[in-house]
């Protein structure tokens, strides 16, 4: 098998664009950049990108603050100015482009408007809508849903709930729910939000 060619920054950008959330896009891009085309030949890029990764992780993990956004902005604009090659400068330009919206700020407040940053969301089952069919339990690969199916000969049942510690937020349960009883909730506000 021929060795895989090193990815180009434009290709990584395209892959990143598949995501909706600009913070996720940036993090995906930076991680792929660090693993691939980052040459490590100049300080602003090699050290800046590494720091940016830490800061972006903070944001997607819900631990972000205004300082993180400020730092990322600073890194990107200084990289644009002082990086040695086009790859570093392009990277900075992409990040700046993605930072152009208020979405980064919303992450600081604990909201991912595109519901992609999984640390910022929770899955919930609305008991009123749930018909206790058990499809979600069958679909869950992580055994994160507790509850017992309704059976004709039994009077009682256990309501279906999602154990947050086990849930990896893959979304498989949502896909199989016949009554749309599973919704996403912002971790911080605990308010239900639509899909």
């Amino acid at each position, binding site marked *: 098998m021929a060795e895989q060619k090193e990815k180009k920054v434009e290709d990584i950008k395209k892959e990143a664009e598949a995501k909706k959330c600009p913070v996720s896009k940036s993090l995906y891009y930076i991680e792929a950049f660090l693993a691939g085309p980052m040459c490590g*030949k*100049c300080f602003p890029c090699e050290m800046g990108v590494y720091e940016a990764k830490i800061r972006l992780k903070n944001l997607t993990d819900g631990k972000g603050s205004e300082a993180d956004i400020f730092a990322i902005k600073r890194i990107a604009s200084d990289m644009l100015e002082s990086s040695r090659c086009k790859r570093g400068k392009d990277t900075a330009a992409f990040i700046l482009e993605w930072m152009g919206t208020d979405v980064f700020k919303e992450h600081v407040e604990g909201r991912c408007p595109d519901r992609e940053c999984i640390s910022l969301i929770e899955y919930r089952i609305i008991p009123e809508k749930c018909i206790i069919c058990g499809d979600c339990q069958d679909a869950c690969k992580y055994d994160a849903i507790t509850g017992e199916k309704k059976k004709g000969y039994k009077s009682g049942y256990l309501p279906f709930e999602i154990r947050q510690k086990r849930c990896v937020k893959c979304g498989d349960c949502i896909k199989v729910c016949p009554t749309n009883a599973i919704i996403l909730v912002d971790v911080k506000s605990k308010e239900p939000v639509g899909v």
Partner: protein
Amino acid sequence: MANMIKLTIDSKEIQAPEGSNLIDAAETAGIHIPNLCYLKGMPGIGACRLCLVEIEGAKAPVIACNTKVKEGIVVNTKTDKITETRKFVIDLILSMHPLDCMTCTKAGVCNLQQYAYDFGLKESTFTRKKFGFSIDEGNPFIKRDPDYCILCGRCVRVCRHQGTNVLDFMGRGVGAKVITANDKPLQESSCTFCGSCVDACPVNALLEADRWRKGREWEYEKTKSVCLLCGNGCDISVSTKEGRVAKINSGGADGSVEKYICAYGRFGFDCIEAETRVTSPMKKVGNELKETTWEDAINIVAGKLKKAGASAGFVSTAGIMNEDALVLKQLASTIKSKNLDTTASLYSDADSLKNESVDIDSADLIILAGLNPSQWTRVLPALDAAVRRRVNSGAKLIVVNSGDTNISAVAALSIKGDEAKILSEIAQGVISKGAKVPKELVHALASVDPSDDAIKGAELFMAANNPLIFASPSLYDASANLSLIKGAAVAVPIESNAKGVVLMGIDGKGKSYKEMVNEGMSVLYVIGELPLNKRPKTDFLVVQNSHLTELAKQADVVLPSAAFLEASGTMVDYMGRLKCLCKAIEPAGQAMSHREILMAVAKAAGMDIKEPKDADIKKALKAKPKVSLKPFKKKEGLDVNPQEMIESINASVINGSRLLWLKESEKAVAV
């Protein structure tokens, strides 16, 4: 001289030589452009981006380390934009640096500390990063602590440039590490412990191993001196604290290919405080050496010398200073002895050492004739490093040797065989190519038929502007013949001041070193450490040395002399340059400099010798004969093994310091 270019830096009008970069140009005007990865004398790599400057009219900032001066450009080094970039980079570096300046040995000379101060950065605004690399401190010379490393790559480049090639990066970006092959400790790599990387490191990542709490830069007194341990005679800078040597660095100019010292020069200073040090005069009582007074010892020696007169002999190392040599010569004539010689006669005749001075930095073709310099065996290591650096900067190298040499690996042309014959063939090759050469040379070479290799050598020789030939003294005449056509030739001795002592007039007019040692003298006066362990046939043996060598133990009188950092004076190095040594520390115990002892002996023998002045030295140095045509022949009887000789004349240095560890571990690896 290179053309001077006019330009403006920070509204200062300055002139800089054509081809120089902006950092060097600014430095001449007293403007410092921050940098962490730039190394003078090597092309800039633009990694740290600290040296970004703005040129008026240019689209984007440029890196000063890699931008050549141009007529009329206007450079700004301190705009807001650039300052922000620099702050940003330093901020990032600080986020992965231990920040323990209060106990850091490098405090005061650390570039990172300086820039953090300049930009007012108390700590990093970025996330703290720690990698917890292990420290390499398995050897007594160099400690490597990767946690301090800022990845500037200076050590890697300096190591590669001089041809040692031990260090390299593992990984890239943050979390990369400077390693040896397979990340082994230094002593298991091919490291020679020259410490060039220590001099290059801007932070505390590479440091002399014994420096912890032994004083920091501002506590040291710095003294410029010269290392006298081998034929290279390298410039050194000695740092002392409270009368003790704390460290020795290379004293070569930044950017010169000669900014190098080997492990002997850098780490051998421990020997000054070795147990074998002689600190008071001693005389033989019965079968034992007993301490005595200076007066007693000097009177005994003077009396014996006077009595022996013409049958007394003086043998010295060629590692004594010019002043010592002049006094020694006068002392010999005081007691009417002509028998005065140095160990230089083991490997050279006197005339071959009287060369004009040369400059290796401007040489574009270097020929090594009969020399086998090597950093690994520490035979003329500085020459090896300098030649490799010149080659890496574009100069060509021709190696002419009858044996295998390590350095031929970087040579453009390596010819093996009878050196004198090859040199004559190269000269004939030059003639056959139609170059203008002195007539007598054409006649002398009429019957020589150059080989193909020699023709190649001749082509290289003709293409060069400044060919420089380094020859072993036995091949100097043959090499000098080539320099009649173009360039210069010098003989490279094994000992530091061989050229000096010969120019001062110790040129073996009486009995030679070999004759005195083998045939026996009635009184033999030995100065310095000789490649001699058994007492030669003599009725009375005086040894004047800083250490109690094997020979000194068998002496009748031992006179304690100052060690090489304990006396001032001058010497002439292998390139024929007069260098000054300054006393860095006081002599141990009652030790005195060679010339003080010799003058005291002369006084006791009834003759006042004045301490030589600079003018005396300069006068003596003028005795350099003009280069003239000599036969293309190798001089016989001058073959010594340079490595063995250097090790034996430095035995007390090696055995009395941590170099012994090096020798033993090298031996262990070899077995």
